[in-house]
């Protein structure tokens, strides 16, 4: 599914990712944990193709294809999805219009039949319900004036609509109360299947009570310094990161 080898990346000429390797197989859930500033968000940006995030070495392949040269929208259409740590507000563009454009572009690229407006609206309302967002949110500007939790649920709704093959969730659980956390976890679990993989960036073990990862990695200073199974997350919760960094 996703194979990252020795990935190095710079932001504003500062080296942030310093040789990161990761192999995610179809259907797997990987959790990435790590201290603030270790490069977790940067990894998501580099993989999704954000401008200004320069790859200076290594490779990343999605389903056997090098994605690092592609435009961000092409990567998305090939099935990569990033749920933002800080979703962007876009006043003036309605959520509905945005979602329709997004689904249309993706379906067209993937050679799927276009959805007519009526079926799309029906689908969008269904997904709203699934993440416990009132359908009136579809009429509002994209993320405009949404609370933190609403923004995160909007991200999960987009994920459900776009049916990506690789989902990267960047601290989707941060700042959520327990109910919202449950909604996010249910969303992810509903999307799980043998062909869809997840990379879940989180600080907290608690999300992993709801979404059980196959692997847990610790990212520190731009590299993965330790990998293990879900018990590693528990250990991190107890002891923090410093004991690994010292190892």
């Amino acid at each position, binding site marked *: 599914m996703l194979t990252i080898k020795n990935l190095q990346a710079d932001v504003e000429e500062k080296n942030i990712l310093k040789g990161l390797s990761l192999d995610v197989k179809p259907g797997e859930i990987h959790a990435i944990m790590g201290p603030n500033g270790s490069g977790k968000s940067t990894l998501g940006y580099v993989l*999704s*193709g*954000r*401008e200004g995030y320069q790859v200076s070495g290594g490779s990343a392949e999605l389903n056997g294809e090098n994605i690092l040269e592609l*435009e*961000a*929208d092409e*990567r*998305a*259409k090939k099935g990569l*999805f*990033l749920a*933002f740590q800080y*979703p*962007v*507000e*876009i*006043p*003036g*563009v309605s959520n509905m*219009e*945005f979602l329709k*454009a*997004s*689904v249309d*572009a*993706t379906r067209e*690229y993937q050679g799927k039949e276009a959805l007519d407006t009526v079926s799309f609206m029906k689908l969008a309302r269904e997904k709203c319900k699934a993440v416990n967002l009132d359908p009136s949110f579809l009429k509002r*500007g994209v993320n405009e004036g949404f609370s933190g939790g609403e923004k995160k649920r909007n991200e999960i709704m*987009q994920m459900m609509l*776009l049916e990506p093959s690789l989902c990267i969730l960047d601290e989707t659980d941060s700042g959520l109360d327990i109910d919202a956390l449950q909604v996010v976890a249910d969303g992810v679990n509903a999307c799980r299947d043998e062909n869809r993989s997840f990379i879940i960036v989180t600080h907290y073990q608690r999300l992993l009570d709801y979404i059980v990862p196959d692997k847990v990695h610790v990212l520190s200073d731009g590299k993965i310094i330790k990998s293990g199974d879900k018990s590693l997350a528990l250990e991190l919760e107890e002891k923090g990161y410093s004991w690994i960094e010292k190892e």
Partner: protein
Amino acid sequence: MISSSTTDKGFLNDSKLCEHSAQLSNANWINDLQQKAAEKYLQQNLPTRKTEHWKYNDVSFFKANDYLSAEQLAVDESLIEKLTLEVNFSQLIVLVNGRLAENASKINNDSVIITPFESADAAQKEYIGSQLSDSSQNKNLFLDLNNAIYSDGLLIDIPANDTVDAPIYILQLSTETESSAISGSQILVRCGKNSNSQVIEHFASLTKKPLNDSHDSSQQFSQFHFALQQTVIDIEANALCTHTRLNLEKPSARQVSRVLNRLERDSKLESFYFSRGSSLNKTDIDVWHEGTNSHSELTGIYLPSNKDTIDYHTCIEHRVPHCTSREVFRGIIADESKATFNGKIHIFKDAQKSDAQLSNKNLLLTNQAEINTKPELEIYADDVVCAHGATIAKIDEKAIYYLQTRGINELNARKMLSIGFINELLVNIKNEALMSAVARQLEFSLSDLNS
């Protein structure tokens, strides 16, 4: 740079100017009015880049050999059909280079009466005279020139108590010309007491080549007539006028114009301006609240691209107490284009309880795009509410990236954000066909944006 001596005002030195106005209209009373305007024009110097009102416009093309075109051109009716934006109208007035094109117009004088100045009766003459004399208050000598040279002045009379369901559509075309030519246009709209009317003014360029709807600057047009224009909308007590003004000319077109709106007691003006700009596109908008409890709403969208310019000087005058004004203009400035927005609110000494709000927002799409936005407040009354704001922003690159991560390509993302910036203003166009026509223009103007 042009010299400012009076002899350099082109064909418009004393003798020639008078000759021309005489040749155009045969009614003495019009000649007298035009003579006065000519005199005022001749007393002024041509603006240079140092002249405040003209700081951002280049009028150096205006030269000694300009001439006035008095030619009356016939236009193909099928062309007109294509041009009128699929909007139903009650009457259609087509002017070509300021001259009334009777064959293409559809004037039925069915309730709303359209009278050429020449055929005005005594009362109308008096009305026209007083409107033109009042409107000679301006800061723009090209308007004086217009008042001196227009040929087919029109008075549009909306009778008192009348509700006009379909708009009066005024289409003004400028044609291509080999040498520099200039044209004038004068339109007076009188909205009678308690009347309710819609007026659409649409400006377009007529090429000699077959018409296509392209605003592509790579196509070389020879020049068009330099179009001077004034519209006066006089809204009597308790009347409502919905006015839409669309500037959809070719990039090489040039226009200097003015809209003067006069509001009497309890009247209401709802106006909408849309322009894509051109090599010179300057509109002065004046709103005079002359009767208490009158209300004006101005909405504007401007979208210059390539090397085009656009200039709006708006001035809202609260002359009497208890009036409200709302003005919202937004511009998207692309490529190397340049926009000027000057929004003035003038509240007179006795105009207590005035409520004036003005907002101007601009989106710059490139580093070369330029906006000059200047608020001006002159407030001489103390018990007023006045809000005034101008902003300049760039496209939010984070938002572009966000849209891209959802599969929307960069060009479409930019387009979505641009449309999103002005979308909400479109609801101010109440006529649905007109709203979709403007939406199409918007799509069209934004579709060839460079990233």
